[in-house]
């Protein structure tokens, strides 16, 4: 029987444990923030104070950065939140109002009659916008497209992209009748060739994944596809941000490029919308 009011022996465990924890903390601070960083002194001319600041994780304006080599960005388009917001505000009907000039080559419903001129129907708005902007800025060879895009404003480009995205993608009878079941192409599309630095095409171009600006490839014109991949491969086309396509295309053989072009042109949709 207890009433809880009997004197309890002094419980020193609180003091001991809390004291020991604090002591351990101080010791760990000393070792981790002073002693160990001191061993880093001298690397890159860092003094003790600098290594301590680095150990804390204070943001570092790094002295290592040498003068960067001057160059030209592959594209003026960047996938910032601003760009995504503007893309989302593209007006398809405004785009439809100015698409006349495009239809002459790209077809009345965005499906061209010429194998070297790409289909645009149902294409990802981000992809179309980026290519149009790249033509306008000259990052993609403007020899053919330049004259059409130079009079257009940025809003025009966004609206056109929105317009084409809503058109029905190439289906059934509009794709190449040469059905391809190429295992070479299927393998690259489904699993890529990892140790050659080739991720599965489907992970960027759909259907299993889409990276920003990556165009859908299903039902695209065969000769156009082949030309683009060859152009990435030999570097004549270089508007892909941070060499995303060039580093892949360089590893593809001509045979693989041909098979991929044949395959993609013969299927309806790779999901790149």
């Amino acid at each position, binding site marked *: 029987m207890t009433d809880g009011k009997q004197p309890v022996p002094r419980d020193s465990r609180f003091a001991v444990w809390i004291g020991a924890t604090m002591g351990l903390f101080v010791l760990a601070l000393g070792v*981790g923030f002073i002693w160990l960083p001191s061993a880093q002194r001298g690397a890159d001319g860092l003094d003790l104070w600098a290594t301590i600041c680095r150990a804390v994780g204070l943001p570092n304006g790094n002295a290592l950065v040498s003068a960067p080599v001057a160059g030209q960005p592959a594209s003026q388009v960047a996938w910032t939140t601003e760009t995504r917001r503007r893309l989302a505000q593209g007006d398809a009907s405004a785009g439809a109002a100015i698409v006349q000039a495009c239809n002459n080559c790209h077809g009345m419903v965005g499906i061209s009659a010429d194998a070297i001129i790409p289909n645009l129907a149902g294409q990802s708005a981000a992809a179309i916008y980026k290519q149009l902007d790249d033509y306008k800025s000259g990052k993609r060879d403007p020899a053919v497209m330049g004259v059409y895009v130079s009079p257009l404003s940025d809003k025009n480009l966004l609206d056109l992209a929105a317009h084409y995205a809503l058109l029905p993608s190439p289906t059934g009878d509009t794709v190449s009748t040469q059905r391809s079941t190429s295992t070479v192409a299927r393998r690259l599309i*489904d699993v890529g060739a990892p140790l050659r630095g080739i991720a599965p095409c489907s992970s960027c171009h759909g259907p299993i994944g889409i990276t920003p600006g990556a165009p859908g490839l299903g039902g695209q014109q065969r000769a156009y596809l082949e030309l683009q991949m060859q152009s990435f491969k030999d570097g004549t086309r270089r508007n892909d941000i941070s060499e995303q396509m060039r580093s892949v295309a360089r590893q593809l053989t001509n045979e693989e490029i041909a098979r991929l072009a044949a395959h993609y042109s013969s299927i309806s949709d790779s*999901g790149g919308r």
Partner: protein
Amino acid sequence: MQGSSRLVLAHFWAAFATFAVAIPLGAWQMLVRSPLHQWIAPELYYRAVTAHGTTFAYVFPTLIAMGFGYAVCAVSLGRPMRGLSLAWISFALVIVGAAMALATVAAGKANVLYTFYPPLLGSPYYYLGILVAVVGSWVWIGLMVWHVRRWKIDHPGLPVPLAMFATAVGALLWGWTSLGVGAEIAFLILPNALGWTPTIDPGLARVLFSWTLHAIVYFWLIPAYIAFYVLLPQAAGGRLYSDKMGRIAFLLLLIFSMPIGLHHLFVDPQIGAGFKFLHTVFTGMVVVPTLLTIFTICASLEISGRLRGGRGPFGWIAALPWDRPFVLASGFSMVMLGLGGASGIINMSYVLNSTVHNTQWVTGHFHLIYGGAVVIMYFAIAYELWPRLTGRPLAAPKLVRLQLWTWSVGMLLVTLPWHLVGVMGQPRRMAYYDFTNPALASQGVWVSVSAIGGFVLVFSAALLIGVLLASHRGPAGATSPLKFSLAVNPPRRLPKSLNSFGIWALLVLALTVANYGYPLAQFVFLNNSAVSAFPVSQNDRR
């Protein structure tokens, strides 16, 4: 179990139902990435990995911990559990949340893996489901803590029964540590997934996730340790060596499990080495309660062994009643705990982490220690509770032993080669590897061994479910009530430091501020660290 049987059974059955789906998924995953299978298009693989990981991280162990907690509460306090309707609401929330999350994963809309590192983004229903399940489990925390408080008021000055004390420790630990992933989901990911915020800070998200990531495994571990202390000595026919040391071990787990999570971020660029070292030191401290537990439990077993006639320094080991499922499971568990603990010590060793980070060593480690040492104790607990919950004796003791053997052998087959392949440099989380490349060829055979082990585990899992089902439907029989082990010297009085949590909880809070304060606060003034989200689902373009 005085009115709580249905509640406890519901939790265990729900847990094993998810287990029954997720284990075959795991075996399939191991098969398709091994040389035994041709490469598959990766999307389905990542769907399976997300489902498997989500189940085993957020659903299965939570249900087991909750169910076992209710059982301990009903038995150890000497009176029926109260608040049953709240407990059922808690259970419903966990089930609803889990179902929402897993259905979303099954539909392919949340291929983000259970670690869901933003800026990868899945469907908001996935994150919402996890959040609902986690918050639902907080009701259980409240019930556990309330019962302890109520008992202490009614029994002033008496020691809280060890089983309940430890259960409350686990509950408090879960409450504190789940705040990390809860905050990450509620304040970072969901607003982004719902379109309310345009960007998300991946560095901050990773630090918040690390807050949860280590202590959550101790939340999983604590039911297994409770079983070691309060069920094993009795099952072996002896006594617990020291009740007091048990309390010390659980309190040390409470204090040191959580403020150590940065050891998951050793090679991350957003944290300085000073904090990485600080967390190394405190991670070293969390090894202490495990070492204490091993001593106490071995000593307890030695009592049983010698009582049964074991002689000499090791003769008592052979004398133990290994035919009893609980003892057998515990033996296996301690072997896997030793191996898994050793690989864990390598993970935490500061610079040494670079050799193993994000290689298959890590995957091997946590499957061995969690899937092996901890989960086999969940089986043991289930086997121990089943007759008391169902009123029927356990079916087929021989099959039970076979199940435990196959689980252990299977787990070792799966995880030991995994460690080796990790040291060879195989990266994590890939659906296929080019084993034809000479640099990778030597990994192939070990990956195949692991894959075969996976199917041994499937067999074992099927045995488990089969035995539990058969036992549930078997003919009713006399079953003895559940009793917890007595200590050699049961404490009559305990100092406040070993019978309460308040001050220790404050210590955890202080350590959290000390160890996580700056690493979190820095994001307030870091520029440029927020980025746009990258939805994984093809249908969710931004």
